């Protein structure tokens, strides 16, 4: 299963990628913002983990654009962000995000959210 990890912070991308490797997912692609993520997304990607605040294109705008594509309409999108007020969480849901992790997160939370979305990713 291939993951697309989108975050403008190289530190965060590395933490997420290492967390994924630790729970058994070694196939990952990285992008530094929404625009780059859209360019890198293809049918081989089964799962997307994205930050919200990024230059050029935010995580919510990226998710909306992804949902508008035939190959990205159903791929699970997990948002990992420092934003945590109710309005933000609702905005992310409306954009098409399937679940939401608040930074700083524990590896356990990341595993739980991924496990919950795996059936959709495998479909």
């Amino acid at each position, binding site marked *: 299963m291939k993951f697309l990890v989108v975050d403008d912070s190289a530190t965060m991308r590395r933490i997420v990628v290492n*967390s994924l490797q630790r729970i058994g997912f070694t196939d990952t692609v990285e992008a530094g913002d929404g625009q780059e993520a859209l360019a890198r997304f293809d049918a081989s990607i089964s799962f997307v983990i994205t930050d919200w605040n990024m230059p050029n294109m935010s995580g919510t705008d990226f998710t909306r654009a992804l949902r508008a594509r035939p190959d990205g309409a159903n791929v699970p999108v997990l948002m990992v*962000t*420092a934003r945590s007020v109710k309005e933000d969480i609702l905005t992310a849901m409306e954009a098409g995000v399937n679940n939401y992790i*608040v930074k*700083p*997160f524990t*590896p356990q939370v990341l595993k739980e959210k991924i496990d919950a979305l795996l059936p959709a990713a495998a479909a």
Partner: protein
Amino acid sequence: MSSHRTQEVLYETEAALRLVDHGLDGLRDDTAESDAVAPLSVMSGGLSELPAILERANAQILSVLTRLRESRAAIESTALEKLASTHEKIREVSSATEDAAINIMDACDRATQMVDELDTIDATPEPDRARAGEVRSTLRDELFLMMGALQFQDITSQQLAHASAVLIEMETRLIDIAKLFDGKGDFLEQLPKPEDSAPDSKTYDPNATVRDSESRQALADEIFTSIRVSAA
């Protein structure tokens, strides 16, 4: 008071100052013309208008003083509020950095003890392989926790970006005020525009924090669960 209102007050103050400047110029021109060419009868006519001109100038100066007081109050309230919030953010950055450093050092201490234990196991004539396996697994967990502790860097960089944006906004306002008192503003025009170095507002969350992540995660979970239930 909002930053928009502060801007309005500054513009109003500037307009009032220009009116006073214009009025005083008029008064100076009238007096100069009277001194140069006017016969005594005309000059006495100009002088008769002097009290009215001075009264108008006085009213305009009073208006300017009122605006200046209002500007000062607006700037004080906005600046103090924003600076207090910025100060709090910077204090949190310092605290988060220290917490992360302590967590990493604690994990290093535990990891060192585990390496020592592995050395002890290896030094025995019949090493306990099962125990060594457990220690290695715990050691990997500790190293992984150290990496997780570095998440503070992403959040504190967002907090610093917010603090930088507030300081740049304050700098811009101070320059606006300075321009009010220096119409030519040659020196100010030569300065680099503060907004050019402002961080991109799309790249940070002004409310980013390392605090209460569990309760904030619980809120997100609650919202997702409740909306899924109501949609089902």
